[in-house]
């Protein structure tokens, strides 16, 4: 226990304050914008519609102590029924098409959809084929896209901010 406490004290707080702008938002800027538009915390639900798992690595990074997304009340929820915003990755594989539609239908209105990564935005290297429908927008309505392969956590934050402030 002493070792754990000592490690905590020596590490300190790592969450990063940064300059605030729409192009380079911080979690604080995001929280402020959320509070202004929603008046409460934002609940995200992630759906992997066929991703290579690269984007998932960067989504997970949002919860590390440097970005500390959840610490600001922006949280990933376990059910689409609890979500305000659907964060979708991947080209949509045909095997995930139905699951994606059903997940989208399960999110209560009003809802936002953000397509994350080059594949979600335009189909990426996989494109359209017998097995892939390409961009997320080919299957469900998309409000905003975030380019990158994979997009860095800061770009994901910026994209979420842009999506909610529309």
């Amino acid at each position, binding site marked *: 226990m002493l070792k754990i406490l000592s490690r905590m004290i020596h590490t300190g707080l790592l969450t990063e304050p940064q300059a605030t702008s729409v192009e380079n938002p911080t979690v604080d800027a995001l929280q402020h914008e959320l509070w202004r538009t929603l008046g409460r915390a934002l609940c995200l639900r992630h759906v992997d519609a066929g991703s290579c798992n*690269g984007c998932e690595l960067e989504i997970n990074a949002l919860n*590390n102590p440097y970005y500390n997304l959840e610490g600001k009340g922006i949280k990933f929820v376990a059910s689409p029924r609890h979500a305000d915003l659907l964060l979708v990755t991947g080209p949509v594989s045909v095997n*995930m*098409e139905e699951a994606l539609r059903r997940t989208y239908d399960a999110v209560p209105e009003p809802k936002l959809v953000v397509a994350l990564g080059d594949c979600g935005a335009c189909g990426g290297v*996989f494109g359209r084929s017998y097995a892939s429908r390409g961009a997320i927008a080919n299957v469900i309505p998309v409000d905003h896209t975030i380019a990158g392969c994979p997009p860095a956590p800061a770009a994901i934050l910026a994209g979420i901010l842009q999506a909610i402030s529309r």
Partner: protein
Amino acid sequence: MNFDLVESPLQPLHSNVACRFASLSVVQWQRAMEALRAVDAAFLSLWGSDDRDRDGCFSIQAAFLLSDEAVVLQHKIADVAAPTYPSIAQLYPAAARMERAVYDLLGIASVTDDPQPDQHEQDQRGWLRHGGWPEAVYPLRRDVDGAQEYPVDSEPYAFVPVEGNGVHEIAVGPVHAGTIEPGHFRFSVVGERVLRLEERLGYTHKGVAKRFESLSQSEAHRLAARISGDSAVAFSWAYCAALEAVTATAVPARATSLRALALEHERMANHLSDLGALGNDAGFAFGLTHFSRLKEDLLRANVEAFAARYLLDYVVPGGIAVDLSDAARSLLAAQYLTLEREVASLRAIYDEHGGLQDRFRDSGRVTPDLAAQLGVIGLVGRASGVERDLRVDHPWSPYDMLSTQLVTENSGDVAARVEVRFDEIFESLRLCQTLIEELPDGPIRGAVPVAEANRFAVGLIEAWRGPVMIALETGADGAIRRCHAHDPSWQNWPALEYAIIDNIVPDFPLINKSFNLSYSGQDG
């Protein structure tokens, strides 16, 4: 270990490791499979090809790892109206799903010609085809247009039912509750105890093999890197190794060393991430916080060293994309020392934490006997006494100069998979330190000539999860005729079904995370 075939001698095959090839008749194929089992060869991959335009046949290939070489065996199937080959799943259980995938993509069926009364029938259920394209369409055949799209006509899947007093099913997925890839798990449970788990995968099948055939040799490394994003360096290197072997490209020594540095960074980043997540899944959020912090530090060092957090476009044909600056080199040297110290201190905390060890020990056990029987490989295999690591057994350049230490455990539980990850991080750190200390000067990219048509090569790289393979067949004018990618998750997913038996449902996330297998890599 000496392996040879009397009737059909093995010929050398282009590869980054010692590798041989033979084309066999149906009888020779069956005999060779038994002979390989007898010498404890590790079954790696099974894939088919449509060669009707070239020699009027379909073909089936199987790759194996022996102690001193890799072997690829092929059987040509002349009956193109109803192509079949002898199943190898009785000898190599991991092949069962691959046989189903070969059928879904090419319509080549595996058969057992001498069925025993107690033997199971061949599993006819689709593995990659979930009704997204018609049953009579085999997308990997050369006369099928891969760009043609079909409406989804999803079919019910016959999970194996478990009957008995109080047995019920829990269906999970394909959309999971966290940030995880999609797949379906069907648990048959009594109370909390799991009697049986059946996996259904294939949800992220994106038609990678067909897509390869529309790319040129000089751009396909980008697709290879995206077969499983967490193994991007390994897959892109395996692709480049195959292409470079077939074109006799000289890769500069500096590029080779930096590829290895990138591969070890990929290994450490994934291990750090898993160690944090494993702590978290056992109720120890402190672990997640600290390991995810260390991972982020490593990713930020990647930006300095390789100009990207994740190295999806770092390994390119002929070399690497970005040179390592001297400033980044000294930054890395300092970072390795910090990382070593931090991981050692966190390991002491994990080791001494009673609650954590209570969850880790005895959970999700795969005994060495079971692992050998199922053909488990890679990290999960090494935690169950399977002493295989391409970096050790088949060291390609620059690993031939590094004497990588093999890390194994024998208990085969979550705790063993945690220990292997810790030990492999320290070994990777040692390799990285050596690599940057002895980094050769010189260019970072060699010229890659266009490969001649109809050449065959194999690239084998030990990714953090286990061995990944790219089997590349060249087409005319720099095109790709066929490219088969293999992720070790194929072998290890079936083992997870065994690991969970008799454990409780709430331990599944922990056990699953300790395997941390790729869905995308398996689904292709």
